[in-house]
């Protein structure tokens, strides 16, 4: 069997925060596993505080683990600063939410794009101008733009530059962390269409992190749903969206408005109790139990481990009962 391109196993990430003389250990990610195959798009959804961005940062070595491991192409993350680390830094790229802070305002677009070429010695220096023009065309921008500064660009144009910069070093994996949240709907659709097209043509794998369920559905082959540091459900995107099995996935989908008044009126809504618990003091057992409409004693005692459910995996003791009462095609 081929090893997945990215394989995060049982990741644990704890942040230590001191406030008012009290030290708090925030469990951002707890035993979360996620894998991305070559050329695949995996959507990672969750609400704020779910740990999805932290897990994404760990996946590309930007965040150290306190437990578990990250395998890239079957081999563990190399030590920071080693030659293998440098190679890895080329093979994995990241694009962030805010294209306004991601580009140096004092560098031209051309200079910003030359930076990764220089860092990773991508071909002779004289080939760079052509390569930069090619990259700009690839993301639908005029090559003339290389001479401009970011200040003259719109948010959508800047995000295109960020995509071009990520592509400059021919990566195998790009982590996209909420890359369209700062953009308008029409620009968002342009960026998503662009990244999906590039993904297809170049075969690069994407870890697409977003709080927007509709967006993830539009782009992902597989979807993982995260809550309070744990993966609650993961599987083929169609299956997770059409036959959600975990109560949290069902609640999340039930809360998302559908831009179609007919379907919207029929949407099955599952009201959640209370608020997301403090990640420094998460509930015992299942982390979702304090808000779950199906929770019982068992859920506080034992942590549900992800188990196979159809083509997906679900971390819930009672998913069979919860979904069993419905018609299933």
């Amino acid at each position, binding site marked *: 069997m081929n090893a997945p391109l990215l394989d995060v196993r049982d990741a644990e990430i704890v942040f230590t925060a001191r406030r008012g003389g009290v030290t708090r250990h925030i469990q951002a990610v707890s035993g979360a596993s996620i894998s991305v195959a070559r050329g695949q798009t995996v959507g990672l959804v969750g*609400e704020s505080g779910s740990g999805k961005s932290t897990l994404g940062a760990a996946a590309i070595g930007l965040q150290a683990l306190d437990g578990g491991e990250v395998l890239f192409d079957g081999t563990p993350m190399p030590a920071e600063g080693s030659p293998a680390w440098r190679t890895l830094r080329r093979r994995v790229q990241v694009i962030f939410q805010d294209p306004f802070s991601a580009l140096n305002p004092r560098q031209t677009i051309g200079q910003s794009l030359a930076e990764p070429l220089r860092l990773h010695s991508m071909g002779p220096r004289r080939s760079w101008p052509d390569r930069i023009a090619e990259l700009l065309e690839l993301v639908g921008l005029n090559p003339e733009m290389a001479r401009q500064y970011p200040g003259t660009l719109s948010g*959508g144009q800047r995000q295109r530059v960020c995509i071009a910069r990520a592509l400059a070093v021919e990566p195998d994996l790009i982590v996209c962390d909420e890359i369209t949240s700062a953009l308008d709907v029409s*620009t968002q659709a*342009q960026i998503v269409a662009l990244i999906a097209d590039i993904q297809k043509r170049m075969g690069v794998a994407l870890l697409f992190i977003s*709080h927007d369920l509709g967006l993830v559905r539009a782009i992902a082959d597989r979807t993982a749903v995260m809550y309070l540091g744990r993966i609650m459900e993961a599987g083929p995107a169609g299956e997770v969206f059409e036959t959600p099995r975990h109560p949290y996935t069902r609640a999340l989908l039930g*809360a998302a*408005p559908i831009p179609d008044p007919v379907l919207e009126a029929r*949407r099955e809504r599952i009201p959640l109790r209370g608020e997301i618990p403090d990640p420094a003091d998460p509930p015992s057992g299942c982390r979702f139990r304090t808000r779950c409409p199906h929770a019982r004693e068992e859920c506080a005692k034992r942590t549900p481990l992800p188990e196979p459910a159809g083509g997906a995996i679900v971390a819930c003791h009672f998913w069979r009962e919860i979904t069993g009462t419905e018609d299933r095609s």
Partner: protein
Amino acid sequence: MKPLLEIADLGVAFRTSSSLIHAVVDVSLTVSAGERVGVIGESGSGKSVMARAIMRLDDPRRTQYATSSRITLDGRQILALPEREVHRLRGDAVSMIFQNPMHSLNPAFTVGQQMDAVLKAHRKLPGRDRRARIVDALGAVDLPAPGDLVDRYPHELSGGQRQRVMVAQAILCEPSLIIADEPTSALDVTAQDTVLDVLERLSRDKAIAVLMITHDMGVVARFCETVNVMYGGRLVETGPVGDIFAAPRHPYTAALLAATPNPAAPARTLHPIPGTQTTRRGSASTACAFIARCPHATTLCKQAPALRQIRANHRVACHYAEELDLKAAG
């Protein structure tokens, strides 16, 4: 029946050091008592400027209203009122809720203290009655243990709870209209669902009209009865939500729907709208606002189409509203 709010031929321009920016051009819309009306548009569409004009929130030194503009609220001519009287309306007959509750709440005061300041400004009531009314309002927005909540500080609440505090504050003086400017855009979907639930219930039970300013077609489908689509400062389409989603007649509305991600649609691809929206400087444009990005534009579109009725309550500003086959484009 006379509408509660009537905006007629509203034009709003801002003076900058070098030019005049036309943020809203010729917008007319009405809101009936108890009605839930949406205004949808992307950034720069003029939707928030239009909303702020209803309460005259923009700096009068740099804001110009077109001379034909009229905003009538419950028989009062808002644009002609002295500032003192507009001030009295704010938070009383009309309340506003904004996107970020943390900007509207003072971190140094308890929830009860801030709500009390609003109540004191508008109603002469003894302190005990005011507190009772505040606790009632917090209960009405489904906040747990409202009696304790009055003495809590904003930082002790979650984002969704803070926004519900803002809704509670908005209903303190039993307004006839709430203007909600992207009230759920900063919230997670589960918190958004609760806030929209609460607003919808209040609107029904207390016959409060809500003008919902949003960029999210999902929120419109979820919450509104009527929708107004704005683009480039102009109103391009308006009508019942069901009609407009089923058969949009303006190319921009159709394009916006096609660009909106849908969690219930099987992995469909999104259809982007090419180009970007531009802001008019100098003189207001005489062309259709959407001309630069419209796949159907012709030379006729250099003359701005008037908003005209094509069906009951459904009005569209497009020369080709009847002819275009827009569903196929989506």
